[in-house]
């Protein structure tokens, strides 16, 4: 038997594989396929204080080895989440982590205070890296002062494990990571999507209603991996790695680069079972390499 469990501050994961926010709904859509209690955690769809319709259609475009999205945080607001969705999902025997969004610091605080009350929400992911909203979102995640400010204010009102989700659309991601660590973040997750765009050469029009959108999938993996490696070397808090993970080998690369856990996003669109296959694959890898604990893998890059 090998030990797959990891701890990120007070967040105890039975295995290091989580589903990424915006790619796994509220877990219910995955439960149509399998028992979601096998997952380390489910990162719920990004939530804002009030209803958001999101951006206009079309919201996605396929690209080489990936896709662009411009969903724009469509959700029915935190109160709807608490009254309608949370009761349906709270008995899933896995960690439920809310991805918190806002266009002002006050809005971030409003959502945080409300979800702080939910017993079964064991951690929050502060999203300061959404590229698809006009106000807030990524604007907070691309400069040290604003990232520090929002993290500090949220730390004051949140007692459980606070993960800050970082944007890759910056010159030096380690600076932002160090800044949020200094303000009390318990962990950082990276990366969110890369800002990109696509044009239909025939119609000479953009393929997304918002012109630009967020790039995800295997296309971004090498850059995401490099950033995770850099950040792991720069901070002491645990790092959660994501970006283009499609299989167990990809996930293991992120663990070796220093991530304590990983998230699987776009891969779910290809096959919702991929997160489970990754858990099996990691276990198999540990046995094959005669490790008995996942911790032996984390940061185990041989240079």
């Amino acid at each position, binding site marked *: 038997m090998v030990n797959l469990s990891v701890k990120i501050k007070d967040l105890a994961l039975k295995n290091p594989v989580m589903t990424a926010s*915006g*790619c*796994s*709904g509220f877990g219910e*859509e*995955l439960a*149509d*396929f399998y028992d979601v209690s096998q997952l380390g955690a489910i990162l719920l*769809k990004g939530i804002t204080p009030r*209803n958001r*319709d*999101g951006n206009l*259609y*079309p*919201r*996605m475009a*396929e*690209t*080489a*080895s*990936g*896709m662009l*999205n411009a*969903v724009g945080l*469509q959700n029915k607001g935190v109160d709807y989440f608490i009254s309608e969705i949370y009761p349906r999902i709270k008995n899933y025997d896995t960690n439920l982590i809310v991805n918190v969004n806002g266009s002002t610091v006050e809005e971030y605080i409003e959502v945080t205070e409300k979800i702080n009350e939910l017993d079964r929400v064991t951690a929050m992911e502060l999203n300061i890296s959404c590229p698809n909203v006009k106000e807030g979102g990524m604007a907070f995640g691309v400069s040290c002062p604003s990232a520090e400010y929002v993290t500090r204010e949220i730390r004051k009102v949140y007692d459980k494990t606070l993960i800050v989700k970082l944007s890759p659309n910056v010159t030096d991601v380690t600076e932002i990571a160090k800044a949020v660590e200094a303000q009390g973040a318990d962990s950082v997750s990276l990366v969110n999507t890369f800002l990109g765009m696509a044009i239909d050469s025939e119609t000479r029009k953009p393929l997304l209603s918002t012109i630009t959108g967020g790039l995800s*999938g*295997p296309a971004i993996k090498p850059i995401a991996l490099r950033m995770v490696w850099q950040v792991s070397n720069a901070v002491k808090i645990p790092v959660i790695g994501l970006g283009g993970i499609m299989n167990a080998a990809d996930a293991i690369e992120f663990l070796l680069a220093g991530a304590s856990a990983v998230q699987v996003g*776009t891969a*779910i*669109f*290809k*096959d*919702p*079972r991929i997160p489970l296959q990754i858990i099996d694959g990691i276990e198999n890898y540990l046995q094959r390499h005669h490790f008995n604990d996942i911790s032996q893998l984390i940061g185990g890059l041989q240079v």
Partner: protein
Amino acid sequence: MRKIVENFTVISNEACNLTNFHITLQSDHPLAEVFPGQFTNIEIPDNKDVFLRRPFSIFEVNNENRTISVLVKVLGRGSLTLSEVRTGSRLSLIYPLGKGFTLPAPDERILAVGGGSGVAPVLHLVRYAEANPGSADVILGAKSETEHLNAIDSYGKYAGLHYTTDDGTMGVKGLVTDHPLFGDLARYDRIYACGPLPMMKAVAREAFRAGVSCEVSLENLMACGFGVCLCCIEPTVKGNLCVCTEGPVFNINDLKW
């Protein structure tokens, strides 16, 4: 509802005409129940340029043989690769997806209109509903005779089959809404449409004018097909709805057309 990801075996791939292919797929297991209007999201094999799956309406279902089929119209790289699959190869399907059409009551008269690849769900509907030519009419529209599907005569036992072509080479010349049956829509209890957007909008306009309940099946771009990405939304009177889980079939009264 249970959804499944499963490898099916291609047991036939027949060209219906220049751009449409009828692909029949067999499961190793008993089939999940499939309702007319539901779809499957198919992984495109051996094409590095195609990253996401492609959605296709489920056409014929044969529980005894454990087969389902799809009608694939070649539009771009994914459908082109799919149209070239060989008998015996394996395809990964996610199914059954979406909500299907509201089934007609046994005594209701229906008109089902299909254009292009939208033929698949409307034919599935009349067959599943065990309709008959006395109670159901189907109008199939295409640009020209060469784009009409052959081998669907067998559906004559479920519905009166009517054709329109833009160039008049088969059936009535003009659009589906130019067919004489559109002259007296009030005799139908329900109208269904699936096909290109302008066609569905034209049918919806006529149905609305005649006061007959009408459902259309949308083909919005999809990334996942099972409700997690929120890429496929359609603005409706109930807000932005997810076409892959809350559709693809919508009552026209809910749409902002």
